[in-house]
């Protein structure tokens, strides 16, 4: 008799049994979704220093503007684009009853993702170097 498994164990077992695009994108969507929700909390915490005034805001913003956070920001941007493109794919298949096209939509989303990330990393590039943080403007 099979031992009773938890929901999470069932999800992992299901992922192992169904190594396909649908299952992969399901996990990507959930993991990026949780990550982005946690980021939303941190983002609100950092920006809420504005409530205490400009000095508090500048001080807290100063602690998150360096090459380390610039690299984390690339991960954030990757998470946003993955979640956004896959979310649009889900919405198209849902609203247009087009589940037959979900695989081709996945590959279209993957190509757009790679292009967007190349552009994003190029734009982000100067932030990876500490010497570019000397200026005090805005």
């Amino acid at each position, binding site marked *: 008799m099979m031992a009773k498994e938890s929901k999470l164990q069932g999800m992992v077992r299901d992922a192992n049994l169904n190594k396909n695009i649908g299952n992969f994108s399901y996990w990507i969507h959930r993991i990026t979704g949780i990550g982005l929700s946690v980021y939303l909390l941190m983002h609100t915490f950092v920006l809420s220093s504005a*409530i205490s005034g*400009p000095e508090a805001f500048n001080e807290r913003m100063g602690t998150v503007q360096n090459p380390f956070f610039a690299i984390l920001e690339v991960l954030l941007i990757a998470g946003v684009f993955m979640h956004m493109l896959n*979310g649009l794919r889900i919405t198209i298949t849902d609203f247009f009853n087009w589940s037959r096209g979900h695989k081709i939509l996945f590959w279209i989303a993957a190509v757009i993702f790679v292009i967007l990330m190349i552009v994003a990393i190029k734009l982000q590039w100067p932030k990876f170097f500490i010497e570019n943080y000397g200026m*005090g403007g*805005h």
Partner: protein
Amino acid sequence: MVERASNQSVLTWFLQRISGILLAFFLITHLNVHHLFHDITVSGIINFAGVRENLQSSIWWKIYYIAFVPFVVFHALNGFWQIIADFRLKAGAAVFMKAIFWILGIILIVTAIMTLGNLFGGGA
């Protein structure tokens, strides 16, 4: 389908998609303006005065962010709730979790609105 969806879950399914489509627009704009196209070698690091100058440059930024916040909070918390709902909590635990999410959502929206008010300046 073995299970019958309640009207509430159909509504939240629909709202999750609608808010998702709107967030695609909001986030592309927000990411471009405040993250990607903020050239540190030209504008320097982000500070209070710079953010206020940006936000005061047009009334549309105020409207944009006031609309953005509720949608992003709803989408994040409702998405989280959908993951938790998959685990089929006992009725009491589900009510408790929903209450936590509602409180968290209200705290997030109030904090964000207060933050934006200070960044907008001029009693906005």
